[in-house]
């Protein structure tokens, strides 16, 4: 018999007899560190109650870094869900010396039958856990932490201030006009709050007429905060005083009102809010405000340590949606099926983090009837500028008639570029290779891409011309393999990112791979057998690291002009980062050698 403390849930759901059963039925087990207590897929025979030590719950299907999905310490219970499910979904492993009380499965199932609320507890935790896990996956690990630091000033509304001499009827009218929930009245230097509930109570319960003065129903004891206070403090105040709005005052001047609904919507995960805003936007203005919040979202995600890959995916989706909306606002619906808006360059690859220049083009169906296409496209470009996408300095935009053409014309230009093979044509080909449709009819782009592959994939000379560009910039490594350390920093875009992106792009063209993201192409190339799996993985990691370094640089120097943002000053990096950077550049160097071997660039 064991005298365990059974006053905690779930055991508090049992009566004395049930608890006595538990006490009499428990055994004790000792596990050495790293012992696997319960293996994935193993049949659960016991419910474990930890007396001492720590146990990790491990999902063996995940990579090692994220495999540890749960952690149990003294007093925690595990293994119950394995019994209910029949087998364990995850692996439980002792992290330290562990002493656990064991409840045999027969006893556990017997208790579940006798006490439905006891069973309900575990069913609930099962559902709860499943929900937590899906949330974790959906959000890519977004947490509340960053939003706890939001200030009141970021979330307050303009106050609706009224004179005390106004009547109740007038006040209701004004409230309706301004879509507000509450108003403030000022009388004899004091501020009072009137909510809709107050008005109702005043009219119905107190029996005031509609002409009665508003200050008779007002409350003059206000809960106030300053704009500099944290938002969660306001939330705490609301909870404590059981009110749903607080007044923001700064040195006895009225600044605004914070409502409970505002706070709650602010606290709900912000990536969700931004995407929701984009979806709900019905006019350009709301879309623009949502669009301008994306850089903020990026910083928040990065600050929380979200993997760059996931942040990029999220941003690519958001940007796609924003452009799609802008397209819907500016282009008449009858043209949607006859045309295809494509984004190119980094946007096409889904690798832009901050808003970069708009690189886009339009493909028209051969039989499209669209006389005022030029004006429409000019409008679209302008719209995108207002949404925060700066114009492209190379003028690769739909406002430029060169980048608006029918399918046949596009095919012709591609053939011409492939024949000419000068610097400009090669660049256009490369840009075209990254094209990705964001709005309109995506079939049109597929047709053009097919023609591009048909023309270029087997053209060895063209491929080697294309590949040579990847070798244009030298890798910033010294003869002895250490990092070069010039005063002004090394350009990681030219030295690291570009060779990977362009080399992979060329190989993808050769293998006719339709995916546009570099990581996706690497995976496809590895599946295809063109690249060794290890090399593909290394290149992906190197690219992620370089992009991350570049993003850090860009976030810290957002105002400084573009040339500096690609430069990383080696001396400022930590030794670990320096080591990683050196390794990545070595990978880039190896890849360049691979390219020059494959495309015979040794003597060119």
């Amino acid at each position, binding site marked *: *018999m064991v*005298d365990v403390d059974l006053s905690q849930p779930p055991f508090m759901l049992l009566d004395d007899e049930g608890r006595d059963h538990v006490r009499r039925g428990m*055994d*004790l087990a*000792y596990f050495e560190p790293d012992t696997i207590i319960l293996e994935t897929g193993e049949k659960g025979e016991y419910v474990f109650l930890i*007396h001492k030590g720590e146990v990790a719950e491990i999902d063996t299907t995940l990579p090692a870094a994220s495999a540890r999905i749960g952690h149990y310490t003294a007093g925690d219970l595990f293994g119950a869900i394995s019994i209910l499910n029949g087998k364990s979904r995850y692996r439980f492993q002792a992290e330290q010396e562990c002493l656990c009380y064991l409840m045999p499965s027969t006893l556990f199932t017997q208790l579940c039958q006798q006490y439905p609320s006891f069973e309900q507890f575990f069913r609930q935790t099962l559902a709860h856990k499943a929900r937590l896990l899906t949330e974790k996956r959906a959000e890519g690990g977004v947490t509340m932490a960053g939003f706890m630091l939001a200030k009141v000033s970021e979330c307050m509304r303009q106050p609706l201030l009224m004179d005390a001499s106004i009547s109740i009827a007038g006040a209701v009218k004004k409230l309706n006009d301004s879509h507000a929930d509450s108003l403030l009245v000022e009388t004899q230097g004091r501020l009072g709050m009137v909510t809709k509930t107050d008005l109702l109570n005043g009219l119905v319960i107190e029996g005031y007429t509609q002409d009665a003065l508003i200050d008779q129903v007002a409350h003059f004891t206000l809960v106030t905060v300053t704009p500099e206070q944290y938002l969660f403090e306001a939330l705490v105040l609301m909870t404590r005083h059981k009110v749903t709005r607080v007044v923001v005052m700064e040195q006895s001047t009225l600044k605004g009102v914070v409502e409970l609904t505002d706070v709650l919507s602010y606290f709900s995960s912000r990536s969700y809010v931004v995407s929701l805003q984009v979806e709900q936007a019905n006019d350009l203005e709301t879309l623009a405000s949502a669009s301008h919040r994306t850089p903020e979202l990026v910083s928040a995600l990065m600050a929380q340590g979200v993997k760059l890959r996931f942040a990029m995916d999220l941003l690519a989706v958001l940007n796609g949606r924003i452009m799609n909306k802008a397209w819907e606002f500016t282009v008449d619906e009858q043209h949607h099926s006859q045309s295809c808006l494509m984004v190119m360059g980094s946007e096409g690859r889904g690798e832009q983090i901050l808003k970069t220049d708009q690189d886009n083009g339009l493909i028209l169906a051969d039989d499209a009837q669209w006389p005022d296409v030029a004006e429409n496209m000019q409008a679209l470009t302008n719209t995108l500028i207002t949404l925060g996408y700066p114009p492209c300095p190379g003028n690769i935009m739909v406002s430029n008639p060169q980048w608006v053409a029918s399918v046949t014309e596009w095919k012709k230009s591609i053939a011409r570029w492939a024949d000419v093979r000068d610097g400009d044509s090669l660049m256009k080909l490369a840009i075209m290779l990254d094209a990705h449709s964001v709005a309109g009819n995506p079939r049109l782009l597929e047709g053009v891409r097919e023609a591009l592959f048909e023309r270029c994939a087997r053209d060895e000379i063209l491929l080697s011309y294309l590949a040579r560009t990847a070798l244009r910039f030298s890798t910033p490594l010294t003869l002895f393999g250490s990092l070069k350390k010039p005063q002004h920093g090394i350009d990681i875009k030219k030295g690291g990112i570009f060779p990977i992106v362009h080399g992979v792009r060329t190989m993808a063209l050769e293998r006719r791979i339709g995916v546009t993201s570099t990581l996706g192409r690497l995976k496809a190339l590895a599946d295809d057998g063109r690249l060794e799996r290890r090399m593909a993985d290394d290149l992906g990691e190197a690219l992620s690291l370089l992009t991350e370094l570049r993003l850090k640089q860009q976030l810290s120097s957002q105002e400084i002009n573009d040339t500096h943002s690609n430069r990383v000053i080696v001396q400022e990096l930590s030794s670990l980062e320096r080591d990683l950077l050196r390794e990545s550049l070595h990978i880039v160097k190896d890849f360049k050698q691979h390219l020059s071997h494959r495309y015979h660039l040794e003597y060119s």
Partner: protein
Amino acid sequence: MSSMQGIDKYAALFGRSLRGVIKRERDRRRYANTPYAWLFQPYMGEELVALACQVTPGETPTISLAAVILDQQQIHLSQAWVATFSGPQAACEKTLRRHRELYNIETTLLFSVQTLKGLADFIGNRPLIGWQLDQQLSTLNDAFNDHLGFGLPNAQVDVAKLHQRQLRRRHPLVEAPCQFSDALTCWQIPAIATRGLLGKATASALLYMRLQRDMTQSG
């Protein structure tokens, strides 16, 4: 007799006195054709029995006893054997109550062939472990001898000796504490939520497991 003692001392290196070995062999032959024969067979399994005993001496002594089976990993607390043995006299009532309260024991049994056989069946031929086992078992062995004609024949591991030996091995110059509670703190055995004699038996089982691990680690 002195030569016998000398041989005893030599034989003690093997964990058992020569006299004990001879006695055991004699008993095994003697009980070969009785229901108790299996108790004298050497044990081949992996389980052990941790014992804790508390004795109030007297004309017929009162013995409280907790026995729990353990294997490599588990201590089968749910199947523990806990009871107080007493003589038939009513005068023992006070002692019995004290035993019940102090050692948290619910079952009271009379010394008889039947009850002792029940205990022997529970223990079987598994090895016994316990803190200062010789002292704890002496009265129980007398009772066994009185009623069944033999003392507990099981192999015995004294955790106290194991503790002393292992501590001396690790820290040759340190005087080993010989209190049970000191030994528990010394080897960082967590307190177990079990009171009374069963708690003591469990603690000695845990201490045994801990020492076993320490011995395999230190080679």
